[in-house]
């Protein structure tokens, strides 16, 4: 799945799979995406900033949700827009 998070201003979700998860704004530079249908295993995630001078960091991840943290280049939590690509498997077995 893939989505775009608009984290500056009022946080909002858009993009290809925006209806398949829910965005929670936990505070400055702290976002959680909760999947409508959890994966069977914890998925892998890539987040890439749209906002200037931002680094995205993966926080807590689980089969049903992931936490993305955004920081400026000095390491301070900063709101940002970013893309997220989530790849996972719905099988419990190892691939």
């Amino acid at each position, binding site marked *: 799945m*893939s*989505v775009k998070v608009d984290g500056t201003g009022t946080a909002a979700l858009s*993009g*290809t799979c925006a209806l*398949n998860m829910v965005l929670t704004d936990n505070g400055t530079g702290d976002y959680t995406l909760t999947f409508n249908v959890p994966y069977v295993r914890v998925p892998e995630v890539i987040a890439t900033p749209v906002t200037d001078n931002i680094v995205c960091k993966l926080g807590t991840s689980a089969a049903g949700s992931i936490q993305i943290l955004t920081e400026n280049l000095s390491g301070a939590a900063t709101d940002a827009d970013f893309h997220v*690509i989530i790849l*996972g498997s719905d099988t419990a077995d190892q691939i």
Partner: protein
Amino acid sequence: MASLMSFVTASPQYRPRVLYFGLDAGANQTATVTTVADTGVFEVQRVTAPATAGATQADYFVVSNFAGETAAVWLDIDAAGTAPTGAAYVAADYQIEVNIVTGDTATQVAGKIVAAMGATLPDVTILDNADGTIDFTSDLFGNVTAPARHNANDSGNGSFVVATQTGGVASNLNNSYFLYDTPDNSYYFWFNVASIGVDPAISGKTGVAVAIAASAADTAVASALNTAMDAQTDITSTVLAAVVTAVNTEDGAVSVPADGTAATGFAFAVTQSGVSAGLNNGKFDATVTQSDPGVYVFVFDKEYARVPEVGALSKSDNRVPRISAIDRFGVTIEMQDLSGGAAADGGFSLIVLGSDAQDAIL
């Protein structure tokens, strides 16, 4: 892949399409140019005029220019003289009479010579030193025939004194040039020494004049070259002593700097070769170009039905990728330096994941 397939089953309107790329960062060429000094010297010849009391009717001297044209200048005392008959006078290209009178001092005679000559002899600058001497300076580099003095029929030296003050030497740099390429321009830097150079006008290339003085030291040549190169928008240069280090601002493979047909004699070295950024791995259903340092523009061969999402991961130290623009047709990735955030070259992996369905994925 299993996840995508099962998702398609659950959401038939999801028509995922994935593109993925590995991009190697390009490199900008860094080259050094070690300059040499200019050798050009303008010849200076000096004529010392006599006072009228020391002169004999129709004494004359002959001066030349670089092209070999000659001017013979003779003294007519109290309007009673006749032109010299000597061979050097007869053969001169320009024959100039100078009217002087009894009682004229050497300084006055010299002044009258300068006035009479005016600009008759091309490519020679005449200077009245106001002390009875006159300097004839060649406007062109190189050796000039030494001045000569005669009496009216060339049977003696007459009353003038002539001497070569400074011997002329050809300029090694005047009108010389070298070739220098950037990804966007093909330059030739040519040397205009003492403002008498002529643009070699190399076809298909951009000429940049480098103005230097005659006999400029190698460090002065390097300084002027550095100024000229750094003034170009796609070159950044620095200078240390006689060495100019030129860095192309854009990545890309280019020809190494080289002397032109009219060679400068400089030494050229490439310390970092230019390399064009390029895709090196993945599914190449897109073209990539680099618009500015650190900015990479991908254009999908086939547009998505809706704007896709993108993941990018740096392959270079101290770089973080950012999506600076995206639409259905392509994406622009800007690599930012972790120290300050300025755009800077860097390699990265890129995944583009989108859907070819217009409908929302439920």
